[in-house]
């Protein structure tokens, strides 16, 4: 018991009891348990709030009796209900501990925390007659709070720290009112966009699930009207100032000019932001989604252009005072205003982003949104998958990812047009292998054949949509989701092979000359290989592997490249056969040029894969050499003897149930590895073989870059060049005796490291 317990701390409660008599004489109503209560102990009145209701309560003081009862317990003995155990007790928040009890921050401030309404009543906060500098400062700070929220911090501790947002109707100044309404409404829309995408995780984004969402009675129409009015006002102000020529102006007028322009730019941005989200998420009366995207694109472009202008003027706004007293918050912002709505655990001090950084952050965000809009123009599912993969590789923020999901779903998966996904898949498969069922009129008209193939295409919708969804998730969470996806893809592959068999039977009946090869299965296999490879290589980016594990990772990736290359070779054969057949059929029509383009697409990918495969082999031989020279030691743990097998199987576990390509057991892997290691005798041979592989890769890449020069290829060329040099060095006997293992650094590319000698 604390010292204060010995003093008589008054309850500050009304001591009137209905019977008007002495409190201790108030009789307890008859309840079985109440007879165990001590007879002394005053009863006072109080109340508690249960949800919206208030319940009157009577409290009996039992401090002494409780204390004595506790003293009779043995040390470590707990009194608890049979359903309550130590396990539950562990999750309790410990009060009076500054690390866990956020209520203690509340106690430290000397002045009471007023709500916005109370502050306005007491004239403690300014709601009108703002100077331009004040307005610029407040709007910039609010924007920075928005950026901090989008970066993953809780809404309550960022955007809602602005008192003005709590009751927008009370703000007298039109400009500030418009800006605050715009931001408030945009936050609602942003939250619904993110929620609909469902691609966020705990670490990405803090959802306002504590039930505390600021509402306003201002309707959307009114909000837009207000924003428009203020926007036009500002435009008029800017025009008025700019009428005088430069030389006639004195310092003060020049400053005025800048201030007006700054204010105008900010309100324009707010208006664009709100209309962008409102239009994107609202119901579309008479326009198609593509038209919405076009308008949205225009808005994004305007916002993109505005932000650098705004950023230039952010120094004009006022900043919080740098005085030493505790109330040096920015005017209108109070981090503690929402403290009661914080979850009880882990009080964190959230730092709002610095204003210029916030503008940079939003600029990048808008750039990503612009990029995301490009997805609506793609026409085959393969190109869409590639687009999503590329988009994911820049590690975009959660809002951009949700926006991409939204663009995609609205364009291709809207309820009225379920067929469009199927069309995308069909087009992709057609481009890939030209299966006769999609191209030959005799087969196309066969009802049975189209039934079978339609069934497959419909079936593929699920896994493909799931794959696209995974690409929109946080990079670190993708692997666990891919593991689940591989099972779905396996099922799709099984279905594909069944369809292929049925189509084969049907084809032979119709036209004995045609053979249906496993066209559908091929496409399925191609994508499965791609995803498995991505799964393994993503581990490098996420820094999951120890360097002693690189061997089997690259080994398995090499194996997957084999499968993918054979898919592509077969696909190309099919395409060429189709081209030949179609030239036969349409002898005089010149369709060559169209077909040639498709063929060369596969050719480019084949070359790239070939190069990457050579690089993998290069790494494998390099590591063989390191092991031979004792530079890289196999991890030996005293706790598990089957160490490497365990690790191998753990890394490759999701591939266990994949239909095709089949899982390679550890024993098979070890067999092949040991065979290779005994085939070449010395480390020098390993190093020179490795150098040869890297050289081969480099030549292939240089060939590719002649026709298709992009950043990724040139990076790979640099990597291969460096590795060739390093391997040749090691082959010549450099640092033969050294036992330090060379480093694998992923500075240029996330998946293919440069080998550096220490």
């Amino acid at each position, binding site marked *: 018991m*604390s010292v204060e317990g010995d003093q008589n701390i008054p309850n500050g409660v009304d001591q009137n009891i209905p019977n008007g008599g002495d409190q201790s004489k108030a009789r307890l*109503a008859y309840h079985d348990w109440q007879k165990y*209560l001590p007879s002394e102990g005053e009863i006072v009145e*109080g109340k*508690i709030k249960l949800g919206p209701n208030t319940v009157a309560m009577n409290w009996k003081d039992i401090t002494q*009796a409780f204390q004595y*009862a506790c003293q009779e317990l043995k040390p470590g003995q707990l009194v608890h209900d049979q359903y309550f155990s130590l396990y539950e*007790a562990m999750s309790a928040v410990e009060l009076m*501990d500054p690390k866990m009890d956020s209520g203690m921050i509340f106690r430290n401030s000397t002045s009471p925390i007023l709500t916005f309404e109370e502050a306005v009543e007491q004239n403690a906060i300014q709601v009108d007659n703002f100077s331009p500098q004040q307005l610029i400062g407040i709007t910039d700070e609010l924007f920075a709070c928005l950026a901090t929220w989008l970066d993953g911090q809780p809404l309550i501790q960022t955007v809602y720290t602005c008192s003005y947002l709590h009751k927008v109707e009370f703000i007298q100044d039109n400009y500030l009112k418009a800006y605050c309404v715009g931001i408030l409404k945009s936050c609602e829309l942003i939250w619904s966009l993110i929620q609909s995408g469902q691609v966020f995780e705990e670490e990405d984004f803090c959802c306002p699930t504590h039930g505390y969402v600021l509402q306003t009675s201002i309707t959307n129409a009114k909000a837009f009207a207000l924003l428009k009015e203020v926007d036009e006002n500002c435009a008029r102000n800017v025009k008025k100032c700019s009428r005088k020529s430069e030389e006639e102006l004195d310092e003060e007028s020049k400053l005025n000019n800048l201030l007006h322009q700054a204010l105008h730019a900010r309100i324009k941005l707010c208006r664009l932001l709100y209309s962008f989200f409102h239009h994107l998420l609202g119901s579309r009366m008479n326009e198609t989604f593509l038209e919405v995207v076009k308008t949205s694109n225009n808005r994004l472009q305007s916002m993109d252009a505005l932000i650098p202008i705004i950023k230039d003027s952010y120094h004009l706004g006022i900043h919080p005072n740098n005085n030493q007293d505790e109330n040096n918050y920015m005017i209108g912002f109070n981090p503690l205003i929402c*403290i009661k709505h914080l979850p009880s655990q882990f009080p964190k001090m959230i730092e709002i982003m610095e204003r210029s950084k916030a503008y940079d952050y939003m600029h990048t965000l808008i750039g990503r949104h612009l990029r995301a809009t490009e997805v609506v123009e793609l026409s085959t599912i393969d190109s869409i998958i590639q687009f999503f993969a590329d988009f994911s590789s820049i590690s975009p923020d959660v809002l951009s990812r949700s926006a991409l999901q939204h663009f995609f779903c609205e364009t291709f998966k809207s309820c009225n047009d379920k067929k469009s996904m199927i069309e995308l898949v069909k087009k992709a498969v057609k481009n890939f292998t030209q299966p006769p069922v999609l191209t030959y009129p005799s087969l196309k008209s066969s009802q049975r054949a189209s039934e079978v193939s339609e069934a497959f295409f419909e079936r593929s919708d699920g896994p493909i949509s799931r794959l696209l969804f995974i690409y929109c998730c946080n990079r670190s969470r993708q692997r666990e989701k891919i593991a689940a996806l591989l099972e779905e893809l396996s099922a799709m592959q099984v279905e594909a092979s069944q369809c292929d068999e049925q189509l084969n039977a049907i084809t032979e009946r119709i036209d004995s000359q045609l053979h249906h090869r496993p066209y559908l299965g091929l496409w399925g296999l191609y994508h499965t290989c791609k995803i498995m490879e991505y799964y393994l290589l993503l581990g490098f980016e996420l820094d999951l592997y120890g360097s002693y594990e690189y061997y089997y990772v690259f080994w398995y990736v090499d194996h997957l490249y084999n499968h993918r290359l054979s898919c592509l070779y077969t696909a190309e054969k099919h395409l060429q056969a189709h081209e030949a057949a179609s030239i036969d059929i349409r002898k005089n029509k010149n369709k060559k040029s169209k077909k040639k383009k498709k063929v060369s697409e596969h050719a480019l990918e084949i070359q790239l894969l070939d190069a990457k495969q050579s690089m993998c082999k290069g790494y494998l031989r390099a590591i063989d050499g390191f092991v031979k020279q004792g530079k890289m030691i196999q991890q030996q743990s005293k706790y598990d003897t089957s160490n490497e097998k365990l690790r191998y199987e753990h890394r490759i576990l999701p591939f266990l149930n994949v239909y095709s390509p089949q899982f390679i057991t550890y024993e098979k892997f070890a067999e092949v590895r040991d065979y290779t290691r005994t085939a070449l005798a010395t480390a020098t041979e390993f190093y020179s073989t490795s150098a040869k592989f890297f050289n081969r890769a480099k030549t292939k890449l240089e060939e590719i870059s002649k026709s298709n020069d992009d950043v990724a290829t040139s990076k790979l060329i640099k990597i291969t060049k460096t590795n060739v040099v390093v391997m040749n060095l090691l082959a010549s006997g450099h640092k033969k005796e050294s036992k330090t293992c060379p480093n694998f650094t992923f500075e240029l590319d996330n998946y293919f490291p440069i080998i550096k000698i220490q």
Partner: protein
Amino acid sequence: MALLDKLLNRLLQVHLSDGRVVIGNFMCTDRELNIILGQCQEYSCAPDRESTEQPRLLGLAMIPGKHVVKIQVAVDVDPSK
């Protein structure tokens, strides 16, 4: 001991040493007077009939024994008297 058993799951109002008051269902206690309350609400001072303070909802909370000042239990008073 009988008292503590009978008090389990009852509504308790506990005053903390910094003046705050927490109200919750009595879940557990030990010899050191550490008390665990369920569905706990925190008020900055004891709510009387006129106060309008909105409590903070804490869920499951533990109050270290050394910070307990006063413990009260919710009782039904016989209105007929």
